């Protein structure tokens, strides 16, 4: 018990000081009113929460959830096999392959997004190439719509899925799968009965990354969506900065956090159940310990 406390103390202390205390300030803001010129009037009110319950905000919320969920599913479908393929490579190559996945993302979010605009717009590289090849006559509407938003989110967050899944997949030695093969399991059965259950924590982590990063994003809806499909991130951003309505922004932020935490609880329960089903346990291989 004491050992566990010592391990967790720095992390919990850090978060208590730099997360809980600042967020209490934000929660306090949400209970007051916006001043005439943007400050805060310290008269307690629940008005912000009443306004947050409006149907417009609810619709934006649901729409953002839908877009973020789509991006999450696509990112998992793209990322899982990629992470799996990396984990199958010789050990000394895995690290380099992972860094190569992350490397484009050390440039800059805005620059990458503008590069996508160059590719996707009506006069862009993709449309001109397809038109030049005679595949299409009219340019495809690739930009300033939901497709472009999902594409941008998947592009920017799939590396995080790959990292989370790699961490989870690479701990499965080939022994387990070989055992399953030896017992006559087909590749598909082996994947479904052995690999997949054991990598549920990685899938869960990757899904959480894409989902939470997507739902708070405000740059991609603005630039790739052409500002025509604002998401929750844009909404909160504009309450804080354009409207200078901190109490309202804080209330929306607080509601978002509560809902997402509730979803995470649900997810945690589900994944606990799923990993309970997989009977296999990971035992460190003596050979690897020595290395």
């Amino acid at each position: 018990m004491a050992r566990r406390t010592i391990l967790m103390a720095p992390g919990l202390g850090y978060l208590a000081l730099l997360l809980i205390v600042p967020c209490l300030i934000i929660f306090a803001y949400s209970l007051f009113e916006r001043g005439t010129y943007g400050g805060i009037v310290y008269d307690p009110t629940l008005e912000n929460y009443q306004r947050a319950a409006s149907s417009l905000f609810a619709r934006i919320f649901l729409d953002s959830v839908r877009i973020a969920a789509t991006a999450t599913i696509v990112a998992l479908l793209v990322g899982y096999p990629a992470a799996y393929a990396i984990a199958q490579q010789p050990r000394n190559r895995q690290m380099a392959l992972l860094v190569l996945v992350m490397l484009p993302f050390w440039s800059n979010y805005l620059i990458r997004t503008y590069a996508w605009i160059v590719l996707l717009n009506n006069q862009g590289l993709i449309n001109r190439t397809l038109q030049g090849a005679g595949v299409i006559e009219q340019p495809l509407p690739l930009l300033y719509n939901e497709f472009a938003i999902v594409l941008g989110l998947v592009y920017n967050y799939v590396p995080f899925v790959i990292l989370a899944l790699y961490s989870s997949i690479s701990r499965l030695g080939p022994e387990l799968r070989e055992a399953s093969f030896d017992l006559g399991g087909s590749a598909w059965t082996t994947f479904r009965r052995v690999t997949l259950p054991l990598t549920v924590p990685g899938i869960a982590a990757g899904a959480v990354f894409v989902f939470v990063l997507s739902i708070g994003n405000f740059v991609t809806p603005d630039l790739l969506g052409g500002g025509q499909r604002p998401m929750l991130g844009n909404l909160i951003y504009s309450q804080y900065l354009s409207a200078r309505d901190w109490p309202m922004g804080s209330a929306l932020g607080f509601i978002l956090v509560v809902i997402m935490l509730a979803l995470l609880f649900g997810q945690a329960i589900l994944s606990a159940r799923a990993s309970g089903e997989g009977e296999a346990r990971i035992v460190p291989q003596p050979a690897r310990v020595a290395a």
Partner: protein
Amino acid sequence: MTKAMTKAAFIAVMMCGASGAAFADKIVISNWDGYMPPELLENFTKETGIEAEMSVHATNEEIMGKVTAGGGKGYDVLFVSSPFAEALKKLDLIAQLDPAKIPNLANLYPEAQKLEYDPGNTFSVPYAWGTTGLCYRSDLVSPAPTSWMDMLKPADALKGKITMLKTDRWLMAAGLKALGYSVNSTNEEEVAKAKELLSGAKKSLLAYDDTTFYSKLVSGEASLVHAWDGWCNYGIAENPAIKFVVPKEGSDMWVDTMTVTAASQNKDAAMAFINYVLRPDVHKWVAENILYKVPNQKAMEQLDKAMFEQYPNLAITPAELMKEEQLRDLGNGQKLYTQAVTEITFQ
């Protein structure tokens, strides 16, 4: 309100106490990157011995948010658009200026010295000004647009070839002006009608765009964009077929201003900087560099006439500008605008 002011004052006092040992003669200026000739600060230091450091912000909203949360600590001079300067002053986050320390204020056009939001330049000094209108490809759009309705209810050929500004005040201004209302209207009915008009206009848009609309014009992706005059010039510089027009219903007049933070430890040096920018040769150099009209009569008089031919909107006179409506802080009316813009963009 009083509580907010007390809080602001309290923060300001705390800061004075905390940074008593600040650098003797150094000021920090926050501006948009590229909105000032790069060598300007260096020259200023050479001439006055005051060290100056540049800090950059991306939008009015961001620097405003940061100064509100942090009290403006560390910053001396802020470049912000006029409604933001007005709000910052109301929140006691920027300082009263001392005209005796900025003698070059006399170089400003008379119109620039009695702006509605700050007559006598008591807390803000205009740096650049202009208006908002339509920037278009004259080779692709005919007849030439003359009205906000040419953008809001466009001819079929223009559908999907239009971008509009998304920043709340300017988006709303287009709708309000088209209907003959004030750009500062907080009348719920008027705002609702403007909202309806703008919602209808959304389906013929390519996108909302506040930053790269002029490059869309150059590429031909768009042929008519809602634009600030100075930015249209970046398009004109690439393609002379690009033209700018102020719609006949009138438009807003925007002013980017220089202000001194209330938290500044070096207000005299900050005002010396503002005074330096207002020197005719310096402010003229600014205009040549950023291609915006500057409100400095002596500077504009020195500007090479060839520039007016290349960028006709630089020749808009102060008298013409004053016919447009100055943007004011909306106070509580801001909620109405934010709500309207959210509804327009999300539907």
